């Protein structure tokens, strides 16, 4: 269907800015000051429909549990613990040297070893934590601890009693992530930010950088949130924390200032991170300036044809799929540099006059047929862009 009743131009149309509730409820601005008890958590679970279903399923199957089977805690001499090499991976000397036992080593960061204790032999078999245990033993052996015999050091162990190594293997899978809710990237970011903002501790350069990057986001009214947070619906929020973590400060400045200027009523789409990574890097390499006029025109193009960055991103992914199938005969893996390529090829196709890095016009372009990835956007979009 053609839509003759709309013009598509580079002209960006202003969207009325509304007060953003995130300025007052940004969870990283300050500590919530809240604590909760397990009683609070039980109430929360009991109000969950999914939890009620799970409890009913246990009841209907006649399942009950014995508190005696909850893992126990013991202090066990390191020299008495054996490592089952069929369960645990081998020792990773680099991890012990650079991460656990590296320059930031502090024994207070160590966690208990996870073991299976054989009820017949009494032997503790390590199923998780050997890298930590080995590091401590190695540091004692090197004379860096205030004790000289690692074998007799009583180390905290969390254990289950079983001779069933299949069970131990399953338990190893669980403590290493299978079925376990891992710390999210957002939680790690929050820890770094609170270490700086609340604890006023500036010992770790990584915490300082994370907080400084957050300041860039907040300056432009953009806010990281947890992936399934109810805050996701608010303007300026983003949950693509890996993109934020990997971006340098120049990229974030360009990205968030563009978002706040043109798409302030939307959340920040994940495609903005690779798009502005490429814009920041490639304009610099090509010794070109990403002018205000170009920014205005790109925002107008996105708004006119796609309504917002998210819809542009989806259209770009579809174009990549079609290009790949047509040119190579199969759906090749998505590469996130295609956001910039599709956007700037489209800009030039529509007659854009500002200078852009040529690399994007050459990439994913077939000179023989004179077609590029941009030609695989939907017919509807191409008709409007023509």
């Amino acid at each position, binding site marked *: 269907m053609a839509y003759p009743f709309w013009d598509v131009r580079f002209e960006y149309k202003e969207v009325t800015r509304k007060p953003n509730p995130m300025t007052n409820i940004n969870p990283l601005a300050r500590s919530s000051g809240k604590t909760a008890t397990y009683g609070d958590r039980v109430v929360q679970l009991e109000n969950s429909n999914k939890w009620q279903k799970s409890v009913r399923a246990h009841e209907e199957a006649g399942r009950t549990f014995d508190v005696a089977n909850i893992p126990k805690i013991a202090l066990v001499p390191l020299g008495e613990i054996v490592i089952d090499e069929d369960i645990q991976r081998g020792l990773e000397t680099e991890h012990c040297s650079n991460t656990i036992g590296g320059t930031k080593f502090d024994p207070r960061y160590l966690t208990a070893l996870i073991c299976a204790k054989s009820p017949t032999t009494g032997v503790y078999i390590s199923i998780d934590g050997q890298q930590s245990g080995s590091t401590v033993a190695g540091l004692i052996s090197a004379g860096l601890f205030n004790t000289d015999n690692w074998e007799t050091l009583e180390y905290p162990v969390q254990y289950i009693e079983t001779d069933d190594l299949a069970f131990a293997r399953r338990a190893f899978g669980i403590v290493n992530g299978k079925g376990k809710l891992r710390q999210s990237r957002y939680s790690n970011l929050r820890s770094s930010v609170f270490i700086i903002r609340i604890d006023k501790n500036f010992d770790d350069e990584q915490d300082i950088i994370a907080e400084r990057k957050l300041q860039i986001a907040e300056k432009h009214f953009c806010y990281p949130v947890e992936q399934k947070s109810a805050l996701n619906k608010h303007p300026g929020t983003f949950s693509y924390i890996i993109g934020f973590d990997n971006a340098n400060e120049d990229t974030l400045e360009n990205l968030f200032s563009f978002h706040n200027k043109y798409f302030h009523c939307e959340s920040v789409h994940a495609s903005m991170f690779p798009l502005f990574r490429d814009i920041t890097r490639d304009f610099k390499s090509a010794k070109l300036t990403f002018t205000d006029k170009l920014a205005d025109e790109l925002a107008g193009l996105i708004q006119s044809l*796609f309504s917002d960055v998210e819809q542009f991103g989806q259209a770009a992914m579809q174009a990549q799929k079609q290009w790949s199938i047509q040119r190579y005969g199969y759906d090749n893996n998505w590469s996130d540099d295609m956001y910039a390529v599709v956007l700037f090829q489209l800009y030039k196709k529509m007659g854009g006059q500002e200078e852009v890095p040529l690399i994007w016009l050459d990439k994913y372009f077939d000179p023989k047929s004179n077609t590029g990835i941009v030609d695989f956007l939907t017919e509807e979009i191409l008709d409007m862009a023509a």
Partner: protein
Amino acid sequence: MYFYIIKNSTDLGFGITGNYESRAQDYVGHAGPRSGTHFPYVFTGLTPHVRKLEKIVKDQWIDRTFITKDGWKTEWLNEEQTLEQFTQDILDVIKERHLKVKVYTKDYNFLNR
């Protein structure tokens, strides 16, 4: 692409489709000819803009939609929502966000076509 508002004798909802006639037929087929099922408004526009409109209704107006106990977000509205208010809000958001979406037809009833 089309965005439609659907109304039957009890509920008000919304959705998007590439073929609104066939979608209306499906609704009538399931709910029955005396269910009063019809589309008070059908909007049309550029596909990404229609999808954006749907996303605003689904994500940003989530407080207005009916969610089951299991957390399934339906495309039906809470009972306090009226057709007049919902339609006006849709028209407002189209204007505010400069969406390339416009009213295509009103009161479309598959049984009366």
